[in-house]
């Protein structure tokens, strides 16, 4: 069973504070959507509103074109996996999974069959008689997902479910979640502030900030063509380099000029831009480290981060601005060296005063 979910002009207030402001979104059936944003951006509140754990102040939420925002959580046909897993500590894994089905009066043999099938999918048949306190963090996570699966919901909601796992287990569970989605072909909504989780899991990412949606798009759209300066800075590690720049729009493509005279020829159409102050943006992998004097600018290396397959070079420009560039994994650059920074104009971005983004022409 799967469903599309529509959120229409939804707002939410806690007292005088607005948490979500006139937000609209359409989630297609079988889609894996990730709500990504910093703490306090409203992503968990939106998820809880879909679940029915928070009321909707204004607007509507519909599943398969039927309004559900007036229904209690249990009647919405939705299952949720909580950050803390929220397993019932005094019940066995089997009872945890059965509880929701018992509440709707499902016959015992059907409940047993559902539990058996879910346990088989999640490879946790041997855990069924244990209590949550006897399980590891990863196993509890699995049980929480199992408790959701047995209900065969129209949509799964995940509220930062990986944040309590250690790094290795988080990576493994992430892959398992992706496989589970392919297998179940259900609509899944996943809330996280971890961009790696968002990039690896999502069909589409909804980037949220300050009560609003900043951008909705596929992971690579979000990464390559961020709609706003916030998205550009929030998605990607290390964060995108930003430099205040003046724009020379005299030629076909705009040229960004930094305060200390450095110029970068972009592939952004001049006639698309408008007058005003700009911020030039470029990702670290689009800044190559070259010998001093051979790039767009020279800088002195502050810090090196050797990641194995590449080396991140933090170089300081003459005016004190730090730029992160990328060099080979076996880079011979050392801290204190003077290096050249070659900006790839085709991959550069411009951001206006309102945060709106301009990108190079799509090839």
């Amino acid at each position, binding site marked *: 069973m799967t469903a599309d979910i529509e959120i229409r002009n939804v707002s939410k207030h806690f007292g005088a504070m607005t948490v979500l402001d006139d937000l609209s979104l359409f989630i297609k059936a079988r889609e894996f959507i990730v709500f990504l944003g910093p703490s306090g951006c409203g992503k968990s509140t939106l998820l809880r509103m879909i679940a*029915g*754990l928070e009321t909707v102040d204004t607007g509507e939420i519909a599943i398969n074109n039927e309004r559900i925002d007036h229904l209690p*959580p*249990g009647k919405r046909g939705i299952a949720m996996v*909580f950050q803390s897993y*929220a397993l019932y500590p005094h019940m066995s894994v089997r009872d945890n999974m059965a509880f929701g089905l018992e509440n709707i009066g499902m016959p015992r043999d059907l409940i047993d069959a559902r539990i058996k099938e879910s346990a088989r999918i999640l490879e946790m048949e041997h855990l069924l008689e244990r209590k949550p306190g006897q399980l590891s963090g990863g196993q509890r996570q699995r049980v929480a997902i199992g408790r959701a699966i047995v209900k065969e919901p129209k949509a799964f909601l995940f509220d930062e479910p990986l944040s309590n796992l250690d790094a290795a287990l988080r990576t493994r569970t992430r892959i398992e979640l992706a496989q589970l989605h392919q297998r179940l072909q259900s609509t899944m909504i996943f809330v996280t502030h971890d961009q790696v989780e968002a990039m690896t899991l999502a069909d589409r990412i909804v980037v949220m900030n300050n009560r609003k949606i900043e951008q909705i798009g596929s992971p690579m759209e979000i990464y390559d063509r961020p709609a706003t300066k916030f998205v550009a800075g929030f998605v990607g590690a290390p964060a995108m380099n930003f430099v205040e720049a003046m724009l020379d729009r005299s030629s076909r493509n705009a040229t960004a000029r930094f305060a200390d005279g450095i110029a970068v020829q972009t592939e952004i159409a001049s006639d698309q831009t408008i007058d005003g102050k700009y911020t030039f943006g470029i990702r670290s992998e689009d800044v190559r480290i070259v010998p001093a004097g051979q790039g767009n600018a020279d800088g002195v290396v502050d810090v090196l981060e050797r990641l194995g397959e590449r080396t991140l070079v933090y170089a300081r420009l003459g005016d004190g601005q730090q730029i992160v560039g990328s060099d080979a994994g076996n880079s011979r650059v050392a801290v204190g060296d003077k290096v050249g920074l070659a900006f790839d104009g085709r991959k550069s971005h411009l951001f206006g005063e309102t945060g709106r983004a301009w990108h190079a022409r799509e090839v």
Partner: protein
Amino acid sequence: MRAPAISIKGRAFGDRVLLALVILLSLVMVAPVLWVIGLSLKENAELMANPNSVFHAPYTLKNYVNTIGTSSVFVWVFNSIIVSGGLTLGTLILSSLAGYGFARLNFPGRNVLFVIVLFGLAVPEQAVLVARHQIFSMLNFHNTYHGLILPGLSASFGVFLMTQYFKAIPKELDEAAMLDNASRFRTFWKVLLPLTVPAQATLGIFTFLGAWNDYLWPLISATKKDMYTLTVGMASTQTNFAQSEGIGFLMAQAVFAGAPILIVYLFFQKYIVTAVSGAAVR
């Protein structure tokens, strides 16, 4: 290599000193109990002649036979069981429901009401005794079980304890139950209440012990002999000369009265220790 050996030796000596202190303090605590048991096993005439006779034979169960022989004792024990049991059960039910309400429900005046409940902790029983006596008298509640049980049901401490305990249970469990289509009562009954068992045990033990040992209110409310609780009944059997002429009999009654409490302690020791230390059993 020598340093750890010295340290272990030093620790062993420290442990022995600690053990000796624990034994000494335990003896100080247990001595009165042993003294009571010893006295209860002696003939009164012998005790009157020489109190030190408690340390040597002959011993006798005559005082216990006399105590049990007083036919009313069984009635008083039965009354105490009904009153203490009823009060414990009632307190657990009311405190759990009230605690859940204060911890989980939003209703107008909740905070004010909770403060009023807490204020009940500060009001001594003696302050309301006369008024309560008059009200119960008007309602003809004296010399009834409900007359003995009802006053104890206004358990401010129980409501406070259960409220705090329910508050400590993560709200995600309620939310998970809501998503599992459970009604509010089913969430309370099947999900939250089982998690409060340690608090229930603590509250239950204290309530039961308090009710079992209560003397003041039963003395006022139960004026008929067949409605006496054990404490009042035992006191009624003591004559003016009990201290000098019936000390063995008196002590046998004390042992008899204390036995159920001892049994409660033995069975619920874990929870009593937890309750006294203020830690939570998870």
